[in-house]
């Protein structure tokens, strides 16, 4: 357990004295993809804000590779459904922003960021503005920025929920592939049960008010999974189990 890349222990976070999440513990192993699954309002995004250091929790601690980072931003970045690319910066400068914020020189940051463009399918977009790119490309750029800002861990908050089903499947495959290449570990928020089962190594189910971890589920088949995985008995069993837990 001690070699977890990311650990959040016994997190309780309140807003205006009302607890939003209570005693939530999650961990993420190296190169693992873990989903936080839950209905809206269960405090998934709150947990992300705590992990990224934006909002210090009332109770609990966050560790990145064994080092405590509770309430300290600048270690782990996240990505939302909205790409939040800055419209006035060229793609390469948008992507290199985390490096720049950490004190790298502009040239150095551009060079470092530039080395990943090919891998992320962004070659040739370096000097374009975000408004010149399609939605899917912008998400890729946002993901690359997250990667450069996160030291091996990505927090993704429903990043693909605005995409249609086909594009979604495509970007899932692409994401898993890239993730393996760059040795990324991912904590992934979603309310889409199918997305969670298809992508995850493990799933945390979040629910209740205040939100807590209702269950932890391991999805056994190794990634990359067969296209027909979602048609198997095993898959249906996972789904039934999750629905049962959410129903309680």
């Amino acid at each position, binding site marked *: 357990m001690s070699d977890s890349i990311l650990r959040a222990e016994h997190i309780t976070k309140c807003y205006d004295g009302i607890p939003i999440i209570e005693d939530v513990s999650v961990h993420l192993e190296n190169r693992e993809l873990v989903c936080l699954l839950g209905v809206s309002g269960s405090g998934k995004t709150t947990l992300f804000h705590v992990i990224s250091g934006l909002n210090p929790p009332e109770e609990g601690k966050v560790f990145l590779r064994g080092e405590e980072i509770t309430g300290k*931003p600048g270690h782990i970045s996240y990505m939302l459904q909205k790409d939040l690319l800055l419209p*006035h910066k060229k793609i390469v400068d948008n992507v290199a922003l985390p490096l720049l914020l950490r004190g790298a020189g502009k040239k150095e940051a551009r060079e470092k960021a530039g080395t990943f463009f090919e891998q992320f399918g962004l070659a040739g977009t370096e000097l374009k503005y975000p408004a010149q790119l399609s939605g899917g490309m912008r998400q890729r750029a946002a993901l690359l920025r997250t990667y450069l800002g996160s030291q091996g861990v990505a927090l993704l908050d429903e990043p693909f929920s605005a995409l249609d089903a086909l594009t979604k499947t495509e970007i899932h495959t692409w994401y898993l592939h890239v993730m393996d290449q760059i040795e990324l570990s991912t904590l992934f928020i979603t309310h889409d049960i199918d997305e969670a089962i298809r992508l995850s190594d493990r799933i945390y189910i979040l629910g209740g008010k205040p939100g807590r971890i209702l269950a932890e589920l391991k999805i056994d088949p190794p990634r990359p999974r067969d296209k027909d995985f979602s048609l198997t008995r095993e898959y249906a069993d996972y789904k039934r189990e999750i629905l049962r837990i959410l129903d309680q």
Partner: protein
Amino acid sequence: MRKSPSITSKLPAVCAIALLLLIWHTACDLDWVPNFMLPAPGAVLRALAEDFPMLLQHARVTLLEAFYGLMTGVAVAFITATLMDRFTILYRAVYPLIIITQTIPTIAVAPLLVLWMGFGAAPKVTLVALTTFFPITIGLLDGYASADKEAAALLRSMGASRWQLFRHLKFPAALSHFFSGLRVSSSYAVVGAVVSEWLGGFEGLGVYMTRVRKAYAFDKMFAVIVFITAVSLLLMAAVTLLRRASMPWEVYEKMERKD
């Protein structure tokens, strides 16, 4: 390829101006109005051509006052707006004051400034600064406030300091509002400089205006007015060019919205 929309959209305005000029010309031609009170468009144009070298000479003075005043206004607006954005208490304290100062008519302040500062350039520059300060301050304040809250949170999660947040997010977000304010202010600046020259001075379009008015040279009066209008329009166009050069990404955002 479709016809450029800017041409079709400008057509009604061009027609309206042409129609007004025609009515004006007819009114003078048929002696509906005595010619010494309202000179015909042709007469105004002739006066403009005759006086052009002199107008340019006076314009140099006025434009310099307007320029220095505008630069002062921009600098003060930038400092004020940025501090107001940074310190809420300052915002609450100063905002009503700024609004109140805007209700004081320029004409009422100008004589006071002359009494305090004399007949040189100082009261003129000050007056221009006072009138141009307001639109730019408001523009910047709106602009700072328009910065995406979620983007701000994301930048903070990346460890951005307050200064970095300002530099990478807030200031760029305020640019378009700033230029809208500057556009309005640049025409205010010329008018402000002219008005302050009415009250005394040795050179400048306002001084010249007072002189021809006292001589009842209506055609020359109108010529100055046309000249000042043209100068203001040119200044506004210059601001638009400056905006395009400073914000090259705006073009793409507009194209994207049309898609």
